[in-house]
């Protein structure tokens, strides 16, 4: 029963990792941009939620109503004002710029909020759980996180394949120059993609901040989890990203069960094994 519990909890935490990864995957898919600052944006969203809650007294989950559109607007502006200027045939300049953004963001958060770790308090939601089997309980928050991840991925999938915005993303990703000639302004398409990515980042940030303590420097390690989930699942495949997150979560759970010090290591080892066996991930997009 203990092991069943480990796996169930691992699957649920996989939802959080999939939330970290979905925005990353989306941006890479649409504009081949590796956003090194992605993890820091997640932490930034957590702080934004904290400020929102302090100012309004809203419940952390309700703060999403403000944080999601705000982060989307920030994403839109950063893409138009900064990232579009460095995107081109060379993938290095945007990589360096997002790396710089990561450092700036960490230090801005540090000077603004100090290095003390923070946490968002979701009240009763955090302690409640549903007993499913003897010795296996599913907490409300982990369940909610997982459901949110599935809903967001289903939503993105719908958007990509069933809406004109999705077709704009796919056409631009497929051949930017032709898309331009067909009436799509790449810069705007990219800005919308970044806005969408940051909306997902906002959700990831709030769920992260409810689950555990956060501080200005924890972004890069969230970025690694996100990367690993994307790569395990196969680039460009959103459902694959969810599976990637779950594999990572379960591997970490199993590692922690064997020895608490092995939690992170076990996740990285699972990632390395999959990379060695299937370098393109488990479910690479068929092109």
């Amino acid at each position: 029963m203990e092991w069943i519990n480990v796996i169930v909890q691992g699957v649920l935490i996989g939802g959080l990792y999939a939330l970290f990864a979905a925005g990353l995957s989306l941006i890479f898919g649409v504009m081949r941009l590796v956003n090194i600052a992605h993890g820091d944006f997640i932490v930034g969203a957590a702080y934004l939620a904290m400020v929102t809650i302090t100012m309004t007294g809203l419940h952390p989950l309700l703060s999403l109503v403000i944080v999601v559109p705000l982060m989307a607007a920030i994403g839109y502006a950063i893409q138009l004002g900064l990232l579009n200027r460095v995107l081109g045939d060379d993938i290095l300049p945007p990589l360096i710029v997002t790396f710089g953004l990561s450092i700036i963001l960490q230090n801005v958060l540090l000077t603004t909020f100090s290095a003390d770790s923070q946490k968002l308090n979701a009240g009763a939601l955090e302690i409640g759980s549903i007993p499913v089997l003897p010795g296996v309980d599913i907490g409300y928050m982990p369940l909610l996180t997982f459901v949110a991840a599935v809903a967001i991925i289903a939503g993105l999938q719908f958007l990509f394949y069933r809406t004109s915005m999705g077709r704009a993303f796919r056409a631009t990703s497929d051949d930017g120059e032709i898309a331009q000639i067909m009436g799509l302004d790449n810069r705007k398409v990219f800005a919308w993609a970044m806005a969408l990515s940051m909306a997902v980042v906002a959700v990831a940030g709030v769920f992260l901040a409810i689950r555990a303590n956060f501080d200005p420097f924890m972004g890069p390690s969230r970025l690694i989890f996100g990367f690993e989930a994307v790569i395990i699942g196969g680039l460009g495949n959103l459902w694959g990203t969810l599976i990637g997150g779950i594999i990572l979560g379960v591997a970490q759970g199993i590692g922690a069960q064997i020895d608490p010090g092995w939690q992170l290591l076990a996740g990285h080892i699972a990632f390395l094994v999959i990379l060695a066996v299937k370098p393109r991930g488990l479910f690479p997009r068929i092109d």
Partner: protein
Amino acid sequence: MTLLDLQDLQKSYGALAVTQNFSMSVEQGDLVGILGPNGAGKTTLFNQITGTVKPDHGEVWFDGEMVTQMDASKRCQMGIARSFQVPHPFVGMTVYENILVGATFGRSSFDPRKQALEIMDKTGMDDKANQLAGSLTLLDRKRLEMARALAADPKLLLLDEIAGGLTDSECVSLLNTIREVHETGVTIIWIEHVVHALMSVAKRLVVVDFGRKVTEGDPETVMNSPEVKSIYMGEDAA
């Protein structure tokens, strides 16, 4: 009314001048053929009309507006669409989706789905609607090029060697489509090496070589002109 007016265009890549002092104007409802050897600068000319390449000097006027520095996407929305010599469909999308992109983001987008279905019917692509564009044969890719461009509801349609590599009967069906499109009021500029195809529909021919306009006029006169004979047959343009 003049739809497209190119004024003294010049474009060089380093020491290589690909467009030199090129001026040309196209009336609404025209069907102009462009002839010239490979590397004469015909496709670069199209690129300057659509906006993917900006001229070093000169002006591009379209529908009464100066569009020389205007972004390609805006020009598409104004009514310029083109097909490519080497087809470039969005390979990860179906035929229908490819056409739908043109219909949604092109000039008029009142009812993109309906428009896309009509275009598929008109160009005979309806039986392949749900096929991935990447899996099409060359002929179907060429038809898709044309269909997608038409879906953008252009006022000016630029066709780049769309008849190349087609059999005679395929060419006849293509010519019929081009005639139909032209009859709906679309102005067409067509670059083509398949001269007999071009001659059968073009009202006017423009001959380009070394980035310059060599001659222009009605098809008969142009084809018999010494300049064209010199370019194609190697005769002296005495």
